[in-house]
């Protein structure tokens, strides 16, 4: 191969490369993609890892010191809505176990064109989804369903732990079970039910190939806003407590979840 041939080949290759680059910029067809969601948990900004459970003392808005033993929660119906109002959703669900590190990464079973979307999801199940039967959830976390006499359906969250009772001498640990479900009043016939799941709007996100979206749960917010949670009064037997379920739902819908880092 002489130099002139080599030069011609080089020029031809560079031209191809140039043309190819031009095509990427000008005529690129939007792909259909599935973003990945990463669920993280923190206490007023301090990350919660496995090592924190049962160990790290946390202080809630009411001033009680507590430790967490368990934090498992259900999200559903991740929805992407574009500027034209067109929505995409797989209608599926994900169970996150923060301590065991299960379900921390989740990709909904849906393909959407690359673009800018308003991203939202539901904490728990709405009544329509809550009426269905899920073999996976019946088998997960030792059984995620709720007995019929407590309203049926599924748990939305099981947060459990211990708080320090400073009113005893000496101070003592008291177990708490912050379990959220659809509110049910079994004292009425038929049982009064109220949907306590809630929508979380994460705002606008640009989604393209390999986009990951972090969703942060600030666990402290469950005890904070708008209802300052008093564990001395509301620490146990909350599932059949209709009013407590409404209070928990209100707190959950106000700042527990937020959009974290979005990466491409």
């Amino acid at each position: 191969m002489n130099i002139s041939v080599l030069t011609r080949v080089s020029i031809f290759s560079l031209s191809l490369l140039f043309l190819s680059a031009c095509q990427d910029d000008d005529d690129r067809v939007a792909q259909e993609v599935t973003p990945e969601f990463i669920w993280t948990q923190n206490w007023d900004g301090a990350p919660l890892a496995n090592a924190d459970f049962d160990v790290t003392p946390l202080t809630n808005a009411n001033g009680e010191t507590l430790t967490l033993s368990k934090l498992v929660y259900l999200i559903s119906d991740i929805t992407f809505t574009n500027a034209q109002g067109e929505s995409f959703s797989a209608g599926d669900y994900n169970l996150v176990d923060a301590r065991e590190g299960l379900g921390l990464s989740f990709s909904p079973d849906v393909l959407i064109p690359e673009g800018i979307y308003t991203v939202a999801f539901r904490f728990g199940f709405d009544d329509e989804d809550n009426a269905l039967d899920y073999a996976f959830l019946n088998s997960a976390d030792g059984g995620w369903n709720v007995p019929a006499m407590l309203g049926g359906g599924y748990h939305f969250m099981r947060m459990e732990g211990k708080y320090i009772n400073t009113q005893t001498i000496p101070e003592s640990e008291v177990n708490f079970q912050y379990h959220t479900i659809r509110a049910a009043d079994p004292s009425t016939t038929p049982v009064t039910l109220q949907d306590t799941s809630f929508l979380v709007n994460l705002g606008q996100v640009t989604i393209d190939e390999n986009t990951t979206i972090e969703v942060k749960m600030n666990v402290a917010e469950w005890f904070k806003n708008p209802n300052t949670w008093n564990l001395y009064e509301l620490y146990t037997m909350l599932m059949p407590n209709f009013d407590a379920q409404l209070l928990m739902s209100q707190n959950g819908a106000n700042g527990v979840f937020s959009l974290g880092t979005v990466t491409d």
Partner: protein
Amino acid sequence: MKKCLVIGVVLTALWSCQSDDAPAYTATPMPLDIPAFFASSILPPVIPRDNPQSVEGVALGKKLFYDPILSANGTQACADCHLPSNSFTDNRQYSIGSEGDVGTRNSMPLFNIAWNFEQRFFWDGAEATLENQIFEPVVNPTEMNNTWRNVTESLDASPIYPELFSAAFGTTKIDSVGVSKAIAQFLRTLISSNAKFDRHLTDQVPLTPEEQRGLAIFLDESRGDCFHCHGNPNTPLWTDNRFHNNGLDEFFTDRGLGAVTGDPRDDGLFKTPSLRNLAFTAPYMHDGRFNTLEEVIDHYSEGLVYSETISPLMKNVATGGVHLSPEEKSDLKAFLLSLSDQSFIENPAFQNN
């Protein structure tokens, strides 16, 4: 290039010949007879891909389960501590080994273990698969006190086992893996699904008023709240197959799961047993400390003891529990006994026949 082509053709031909001459052995498939309620409400059973259920495998597993040949002195079979009449446990606080040694834990009942989705076996979760669980008792000095080398030599020398292994696995080579696979296949067939409460769910039989009240207590967060660990009528297992400290002791002589994981947060945690077949499985708890169901209910009602790792699900620990009335205790016991399955312990397919 030509050489490569020739070698490729020869290798392909050899591979083809091998495929034709030595097809993989397949025993007669024997899918588990999955009860309708199990199939509709929970995930499928856990069956390893490398150990499918077969007629010959289950037959071999059953033979091994009842044969004292697995113990060093030839006196003890699996079934000596796992009797069908006791829902495959025994009625001792601690089981006694082949040499007369006394163990430290209560023998676990065996049923519906194909649905152990957590795949942690023993009271302390020490083994990660059912097949692995079978290795340990054979060599445990306080149980069968044998060696796997001795076991395989004994089985090899037997007039029947080489043929049974051949039928089950297509090989006369006997090893510990084959033994554990066969016994695991048999154990997965031990399905209990015909208690009175199961028949109640299909409207075949009504619950008594006592049993109905007992169920309400079981599901009531302010009284029994048993369901968070033991399940509810929506599913058939009556256990979460997880590990909890249920407030038995202030200090631990047996660390349970903590000794396995090395994590002090797991100290005093033991596996939740199923509430099925309680009529046959006394004594109760990992150490068999309670002889009667009354004692068990009394424990949860008044006897809870605080320790650092106690489960947050235990209620009113400071006062020992939720303090059920005598009537409530009696009703709860009546409901619990409705989960016992007489036909399971009498099933001819599970007996030594």
